[in-house]
């Protein structure tokens, strides 16, 4: 059945999580199942993407209840791209987890929670119903609570409290916004809302609702000034966990913003200006935060915040080219941020240190590995022809043509800061000489690990770096994809017709 193919990425992850629950105490089986399942999900996501991209939008009305009354699942180019990216990075993280997550933590349901989390992500990308989107967000944050507290160290609990409070607040704001919207329009189906929202008399209240959505999603995707929970909590869990957080959790907020603000609330001048200013401030404050950090993972966390600004900036300008740039950046960013935190985990395994001042000697000891790591780092900075460079062309050019010079300045500032920060990281961790220090007994160092463990550490990074390379070198294809998505976002009639079945 072609329509049921849409829901398959969700069902697959769900079934996988259930099967893993049956093997609660048998960690070895869980590891293997998780890898196999993740590879399967990549295949499913690829199939779905292939079916949708370049042809028509697929819809599925759950339970056979027609839209706008039932819950619609919609697979268009944007959502299937996101699913593909999510399954690619979660496959890499699943493999990385096998050797980096401690046995004691795995025993408390690491892998089942992991697949519940990916299920939530897939659901959020696919749903066409705004309340259902909220439900998937809940699935995601409940699973992430498990992750962020797994281990139960003091610093983790401290991070978890901030994470929990802010994310709960975001959910409340989001839910309130949905309630107001339902009161105004009497519908929850996003395609249906798109038509109804224009005929509402009280446009002032609609504007307020839009701001509520912006705040709700803004907290989740860490926009200025709502980002401070992120650098405080993302550095506490283990590398594999924070890489899935970094790569996908903030991006699902961006996805929701792009979706809701292109489909339901079309930004007017006020909204555009507001979003542009927020984007600029996100870039500047995230960048400055990254600049002063000496803790590697905190610095990476601030870089996440900083780069969110690029995507939000693209949304703020709201032209096809700017949205295309934002979507391209999103594609690039999911892969690169996942990889960045995996690299952070690897560097920690090599050095046993999180403080950059006390790192060093990686290039001297592991030249080939350093070259591999250089690829994602340079992509992040945006060295042409690597992947970070291409979306910036679109974004910079559009901020010129729409004469958003403030945003342009912030874009440039963000890029320079990223360059500075990554250069410093490179020189501290890779080029500086390693001082001889005593090894700490409780860390499993990289060079003590057997060969297969080393392979399991390197392969995910290699895999994601290759994808980054492809995004950079095959930029033509990605441009075509992001253009298609941006065109669909601006001209949403195809989406609406597909959901409401008007074309027939």
């Amino acid at each position: 059945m072609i329509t049921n193919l849409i829901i398959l990425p969700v069902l697959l992850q769900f079934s996988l999580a259930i099967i893993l629950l049956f093997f609660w105490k048998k960690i070895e089986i869980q590891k293997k199942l998780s890898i196999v399942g993740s590879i399967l999900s990549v295949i499913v996501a690829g199939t779905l993407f292939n079916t949708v991209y370049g042809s028509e939008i697929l819809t599925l009305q759950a339970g056979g209840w027609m839209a706008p009354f039932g819950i619609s699942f919609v697979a268009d180019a944007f959502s299937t791209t996101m699913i593909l990216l999510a399954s690619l990075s979660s496959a890499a993280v699943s493999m990385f987890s096998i050797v980096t997550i401690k046995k004691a933590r795995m025993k408390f349901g690491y892998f089942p929670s992991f697949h519940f989390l990916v299920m939530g992500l897939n659901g959020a990308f696919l749903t066409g119903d705004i309340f259902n989107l909220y439900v998937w967000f809940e699935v995601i944050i409940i699973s992430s609570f498990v992750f962020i507290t797994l281990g139960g160290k003091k610093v983790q609990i401290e991070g978890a409290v901030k994470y929990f409070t802010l994310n709960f607040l975001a959910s409340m704001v989001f839910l309130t916004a949905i309630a107001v919207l339902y009161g105004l329009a009497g519908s929850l189906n996003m395609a249906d809302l798109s038509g109804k929202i224009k005929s509402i008399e009280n446009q002032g209240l609609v504007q307020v609702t839009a701001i509520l959505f912006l705040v709700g999603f803004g907290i989740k995707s860490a926009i200025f000034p709502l980002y401070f929970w992120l650098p405080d909590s993302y550095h506490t869990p283990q590398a594999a966990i924070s890489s899935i957080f970094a790569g996908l959790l903030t991006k699902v907020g961006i996805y929701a913003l792009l979706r809701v603000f292109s489909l339901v609330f079309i930004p007017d001048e006020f909204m555009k200006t507001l979003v542009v200013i927020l984007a600029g401030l996100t870039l500047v404050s995230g960048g400055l935060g990254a600049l002063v950090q000496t803790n590697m993972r905190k610095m990476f966390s601030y870089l996440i915040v900083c780069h969110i600004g690029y995507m939000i900036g693209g949304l703020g300008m709201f032209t096809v080219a700017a949205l295309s740039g934002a979507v391209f950046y999103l594609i690039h960013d999911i892969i690169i941020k996942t990889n960045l935190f995996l690299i952070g985990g690897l560097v920690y395994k090599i050095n046993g240190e999180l403080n950059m001042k006390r790192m060093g000697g990686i290039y001297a000891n592991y030249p080939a590995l350093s070259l591999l790591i250089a690829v994602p780092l340079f992509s992040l900075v945006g060295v042409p022809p690597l992947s970070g460079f291409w979306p910036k062309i679109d974004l910079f050019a559009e901020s010129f043509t729409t004469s958003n010079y403030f945003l342009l300045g912030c874009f440039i500032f963000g890029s320079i800061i990223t360059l500075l920060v990554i250069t410093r990281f490179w020189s501290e961790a890779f080029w500086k000489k390693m001082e001889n220090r005593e090894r700490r007994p409780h860390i499993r160092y990289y060079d003590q690990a057997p060969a297969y463990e080393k392979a399991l550490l390197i392969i995910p990074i290699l895999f994601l770096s290759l994808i980054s390379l492809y995004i950079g070198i095959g930029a033509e294809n990605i441009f075509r994809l992001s253009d298609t998505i941006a065109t669909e976002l601006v001209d949403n009639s195809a989406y609406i017709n597909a959901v409401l079945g008007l074309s027939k």
Partner: protein
Amino acid sequence: MRHLTFRTATTFLLPLLLLFSVFILLRGHYLPGGGFVGGIIAAIAFVLHAFAFGLRHTRKLLRVSPMLLMPTGLALAVLAAMLPFLQGLPIMTSLWLNEPLPVVGLAGSALLFDAGVYLAVLGVALTIIFTISESV
């Protein structure tokens, strides 16, 4: 807690509560009730037993670990959601039997789903309560 009256009452209450939980589960489609409440009531029955006779006996009575009930329940629910695939219908479409079953009445895939919820809730509630009372 281990008073003779309490223990004797529990031996009578346990089957009654379990029957009642199944009744609540079955009436849940059109009337108040359903898998969630049914599961909670069933959990109460076992918790009562644990208070009266001690956890070890309750675990023996249960035979399966409550940890196993959770995935079983979830699996049933997913199965109910996926049953319409066989007929080429969208996910979670309600399927109904043509003839009513004895005792149960007219059953459909929604009942299977609810039974899954029942087991999952029972599993979760018992796992939480057992874990807490074992660690005290």
